[in-house]
């Protein structure tokens, strides 16, 4: 478990000041720049307001497996967990996450709009409280793609116009959709086609045309590193990672927003917490997911706030001082052609298609 220095210090001070055990809660997230944005926007103001000490645990990548193991062992040590929507659905399905009533447990928007309406369609599961909208999209090296910069996602498959290596995630999700679109399947039909074995073969065949030129990544930091080193000329990753390569590290990289795939990330509260801990977790959630707090997070990282009412409040980056709105995946200029991660389809087809995809990769 990684405990950040600030919280260590805070808890040490709290221990000394209070003499007795201070109130503590463990919040699980992804680590890195993302955890920092949460620390600044949520944890620090919340600790100040309530006196609760927050411990960070960077385990979100294995959250479902670990929560399942904790549940079996009957000892749940986490209070609030940050997960992607697909994991939240699975946790809800397995009865490992608590159901949330948006009307009573979440703060309404400042203008009185109920939380349910403010989050709208993004409440994809009864247990899930959305936080941000992020996207998986492409970045390319401006100096390595020749005179015409790519504007179309299908440039990925165009080896003649853009010779060189590309990086794609080592899993079927997103790649199969992009392959089908670029193989002439209409956007609305993608999942109908992908549900058939022929459609899956078609997608793999399309990916096969560039297979020898693909570096497959499994960690979100891989593509930024490969782009910065010039190992690949274009590659997919999370838009926030590309933002930091472009704006913070000033690398010659640009975004290709076309056919970006939106996904959601947010909180769940594990099922089976004691009443006291559950109350504390809910109090935190009520505070951390209100309109202002979600807008505050966007000062630290280029992910779009999940509430409609937060969007107008997004301002400048806290350290770089640049306007954040144009870097949001949800910005109208960037969101001309988008996909929303199809949770239901992948919940059903993930096992089957992943086995095929891995077998195909190993050929």
């Amino acid at each position, binding site marked *: 478990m990684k405990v950040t220095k600030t919280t260590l210090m805070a808890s040490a001070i709290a221990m000394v000041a209070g003499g007795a055990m201070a109130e503590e809660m463990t919040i699980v997230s992804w680590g890195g720049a993302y955890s920092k944005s949460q620390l600044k926007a949520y944890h620090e103001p919340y600790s100040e307001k309530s006196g609760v000490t927050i411990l960070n645990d960077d385990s979100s*990548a*294995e959250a*479902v*497996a670990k929560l*399942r193991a904790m549940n079996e062992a009957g000892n749940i040590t986490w209070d609030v967990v940050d997960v992607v929507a697909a994991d939240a659905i*699975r946790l*809800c*399905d*397995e*009865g490992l996450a608590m159901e949330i009533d948006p009307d009573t447990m979440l703060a309404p928007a400042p203008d009185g709009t109920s939380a349910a309406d403010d989050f709208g369609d993004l409440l994809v599961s009864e247990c899930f409280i959305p936080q941000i909208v992020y996207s998986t999209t492409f970045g390319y090296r401006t100096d390595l793609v020749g005179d015409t910069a790519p504007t179309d996602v299908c440039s990925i498959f165009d080896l003649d116009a853009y010779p060189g*290596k590309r990086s794609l995630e*080592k899993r079927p999700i997103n790649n199969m959709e992009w392959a089908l679109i670029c193989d002439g399947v209409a956007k609305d039909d993608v999942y109908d086609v992908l549900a058939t074995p022929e459609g899956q*073969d078609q997608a793999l065949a399309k990916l096969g045309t560039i297979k020898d030129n693909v*570096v*497959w990544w*499994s960690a979100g930091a891989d593509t930024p590193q490969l782009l910065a*080193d*010039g*190992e690949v000329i274009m590659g997919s990753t999370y838009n926030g990672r590309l933002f930091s390569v472009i704006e913070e590290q000033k690398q010659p990289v640009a975004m290709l927003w076309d056919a970006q795939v939106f996904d959601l990330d947010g909180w769940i509260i594990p099922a089976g917490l004691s009443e006291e801990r559950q109350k504390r977790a809910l109090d935190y959630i009520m505070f951390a997911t209100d309109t202002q707090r979600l807008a505050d997070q966007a000062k630290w990282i280029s992910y779009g706030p999940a509430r409609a009412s937060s969007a107008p409040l997004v301002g400048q980056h806290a350290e770089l001082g640049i306007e954040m709105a144009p870097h949001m995946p949800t910005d109208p200029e960037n969101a001309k052609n988008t996909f929303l991660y199809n949770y*239901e389809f992948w*919940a*059903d*087809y*993930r*096992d*089957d298609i*992943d*086995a*095929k995809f*891995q*077998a*195909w*990769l*190993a050929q």
Partner: protein
Amino acid sequence: MTDATQSGPMLAADGTPLKKSLARSLRRRKLRALALIAPLLLFVLLSFVIPIVSMLFRSVENSIVSETLPLTVIELQHWDAESGELPDEALYAAFTKDMVAAVEAKQHTRLGTRLNYEQTGMSSMFRKSGRQIKRLDVEADAPFKEKLIDIHDGWGDVETWKVIKTHAVPITNGYFLNAVDMRRTPEGAQSQPEDKQILIKLFGRTLFMSLVITGSCILLAYPISYLLANLPMRVSNLLMILVLLPFWTSLLVRTSAWKVMLQQQGVINETLVWLGLVADDARLVIINNQIGTIIAMTHILLPFMVLPMYSVMQTIPETYTRAAKSMGATNWTTFWRIYFPQSIPGIGAGSILVFILSIGYYITPEIVGGTKGVFISNRIAYHISSSLNWGLAAALGTILLAVVLLLYWVYDKIVGIDNVKLG
């Protein structure tokens, strides 16, 4: 001797028979020894043996179907899967009853996830149907057959019931079959469709690459260990630190460093291009494939080979080689006939260590292995943390354990485990 002439058994000082007294004191000593190691034994048992056994048990455990749908499973026994006809109303009624209870306990989606491993689509079918079946009254709303098929046409598909029936057994061989690219069907075990076969291939690759890594470790470690064992103490200590230094560095740091070294715009390729040995447009591909994994893992596991070799070579007396040479042996003969046979126990110990460690390696192949250089352990990790198919992960793990034990046994038969020395 008066004792010898005595007719009764030999007695100890306190009058008990000597045999009994001896046995008692032995037993007491054994108990004391056991008490001394009890904390360790208990610790190993609790933190090692029990978790492993329970994990292995998951590879056959499958009570979820019969526990979630107890009435349905009983009814299914009367249904003939071969008839090609849907089950009768009694089964649908039993199923509705089971599902209402399961939805109440939030067990139905868990079962959907389990069955989705076998048949795509089960996950959403159970989730969606659950919401509507919950509203049905188990008494008043009968008959259910039509209603269920209305809710989701999957309930009107014979295949659905076949899958449930096939996987209703509390102890299943299904996970083990999956682990060897087969599957459990109503007609018995069958192979997976060809485009989904991958696990056998990965097992083979894991064994093959572990052997290659062990071999290259032997080749590299032998001369180093020889040097270490035969140089003066001051120099060899310095060299030893060089061997151990990477050993103390984090595994992730070393693996990431290899990435910087090996990639196409990396240190090795840049140097070769600069020297003119490789053309700029034909840079070597030495990462994200098997070569990358072999290089990085050989480097990481090298100390495990050097250390046992070194400690065995240190014990080989120099007088033997001198004696051989004084009797006219050439340098080669001395090495091959005198020195090498004495160093074999070190090679054996190092090889076992390196081979067994590399068979279970996960993070290095994941980072530098690309698609062709990954091991079976990467698949196990996927099933533990991503697909949550713990039964399959357990079956894969069990097979891997069995393979290692089998190889250990073969090694013992061929080389002999007594020939392994760590120093």
